[in-house]
């Protein structure tokens, strides 16, 4: 891989490789260190932090679906007030940059988490923040913020106010919305540095014995390989919108169903600057190394010398 460049920059954040550990699938990074796989990731995203610790009534039980996992999108979360710097992996040698995921039920909640990070002087070490726009808006019938431009915009704007200007903001969107480009445009205008698609999509599984939902349908999302075409389509649509001028230029991060170098190459070709791995790491904690190796191979096969050369080429005729 030595002769192929892998470094990318997203909203000012430099990544050694364009592969990021997704929120909720790499814990706080300590396990990666123990498994010895931290070097294979360009950055990691923490589990979502909320303003106050939220012990959800039910633990985050995962259910296997065909080529995917169904999980509650409302999960027990770590409150920023109880987060000790020691809970984060920054003391360990060689841990990649840490992107902190923020969640909440009002735009004020998000601002509070961001301010909490500043107060705890944790922000010094934060390489970026990712906003979970799939969180539900308590003031709007519990619709996720990501479902419309207004909801997404107000959260991104509040977080932008609370986060130092040098810290990039990743807005994590949902692909299963009516007009993704409109929501994305709102996020860019409000100050997002990059867009991440997609959060888990709405899904439902019924228990075969009781014929009742296995996870509360109000907040159950599907992730895993089944999502790959949805992720690629969302990235494609956003990239196409940038090309046509409907969306200001902004880096994209693909997440959902990526588990091989070929998948990552496809995501870059569709327009992403980096990919996140979630379920793939649960199936195989070593997956990141294989994804990077496969991506480098895909770059080499096409006669390129840098992963940047792949970005958006699917749109070229």
């Amino acid at each position, binding site marked *: 891989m030595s002769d192929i460049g892998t470094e990318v920059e997203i909203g000012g954040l430099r990544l050694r490789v364009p592969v990021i550990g997704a929120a*909720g*699938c*790499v*814990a706080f990074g*300590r*396990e*990666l260190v*123990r*498994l010895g796989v931290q070097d294979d990731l360009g950055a990691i995203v923490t*589990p979502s932090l909320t303003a106050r610790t939220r*012990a959800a*009534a*039910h*633990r*985050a*039980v*995962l259910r*296997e679906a*065909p*080529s*995917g*996992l169904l*999980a509650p999108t409302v*999960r*027990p979360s770590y409150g920023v007030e109880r987060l000790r710097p020691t809970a984060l992996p920054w003391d360990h040698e060689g841990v990649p940059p840490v992107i902190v995921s923020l969640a909440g039920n009002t735009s004020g909640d998000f601002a509070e988490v961001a301010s909490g990070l500043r107060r705890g002087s944790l922000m010094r070490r934060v390489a970026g923040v990712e906003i979970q726009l799939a969180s539900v808006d308590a003031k709007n019938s519990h619709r996720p913020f990501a479902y419309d431009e207004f909801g997404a915009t107000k959260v991104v704007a509040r977080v932008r106010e609370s986060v130092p200007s040098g810290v990039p903001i990743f807005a994590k969107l949902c692909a299963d919305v009516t007009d993704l480009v409109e929501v994305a445009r709102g996020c860019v205008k409000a100050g997002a540095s990059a867009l991440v698609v997609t959060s888990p999509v709405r899904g439902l599984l019924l228990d075969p014995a009781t014929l009742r939902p296995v996870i509360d349908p109000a907040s159950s999302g599907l992730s*895993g*390989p089944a999502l790959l075409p949805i992720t690629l389509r969302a990235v494609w649509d956003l990239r196409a919108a940038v090309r046509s001028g409907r969306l200001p230029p902004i880096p994209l991060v693909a997440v959902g169903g990526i*588990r*091989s170098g070929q998948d990552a190459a496809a995501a870059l070709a569709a327009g992403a600057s980096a990919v996140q791995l979630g*379920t793939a*790491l*649960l*199936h*195989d*904690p070593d997956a990141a190394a*294989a994804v990077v190796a496969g991506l480098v191979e895909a770059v080499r096969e096409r006669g390129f010398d840098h992963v940047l050369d792949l970005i958006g080429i699917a749109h070229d005729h």
Partner: protein
Amino acid sequence: MGAFRHHTLVAPDIADRARPGQMVSVAIGGPASALVSRRTLPIAAASPSGTYGGTVDVIVDPGLDAGMAWLGDLRAHDEVAMIGPVGRAYPLPTSGVDVLVVGVGASAAPVGWLAAHLRDRGCRVDLTLAGPDDRHLVGVIEARRIAGSVTVLTGADPELGADLAARVRTQLRTSEIAVVYAAGRARHLAPVVEVARPFGVVVQCCVDEDMPCGTGLCGSCEIPVRADDGMRHTIRGCTEGAVLRGDRVDWAALAEELG
């Protein structure tokens, strides 16, 4: 063996370090598998020096789900991706005391191995194996070679947990048992911990519930526990369990979360 399959897997690094109560996390299918979560299985035995190098044994219940059926169908020389040993082992007493070892269904995989360790430390071991029927019991014949007495209980849920608890109560009343070692699902362990409480006997429980990654990454096997200061918090069953002191676990909350 009955409804279960017993696999011996060559894994020298795991076999060298594994102790009773620890587990292995196994990927289901290859890199393109449609079954994306892993299965975390208690280790039934480990032999650091076998003909083919160190091996670990696991017990698979193919009737449990599609992933376990895949594992059950593995044949000699097939390869699986495996991580281990995972989690905390059973703490062993420093001196020879009387102990009771209890295991339910396929979760009872480690009890024979554990009983052998306890016997080697001079403990007198009574063993109780339980399951829905004769085909869902692990290692009864081997157990008779190791333990001073072996009791077998069969019955359907939810009565099985209560029957098991009644049996444990009788044994605690009639003998000088210092520690109970248990392996099973939460629904079977909770009643055992409850009956041991008035006797002041600690139950070391191997809580065998779903652990979708077995590496601590997903956080979906969290178990509510109470610390020394009475504060409730959660720990991850795979990396911080699966062996826990029964009196520390909030069984009611766990049962509610498991649904």
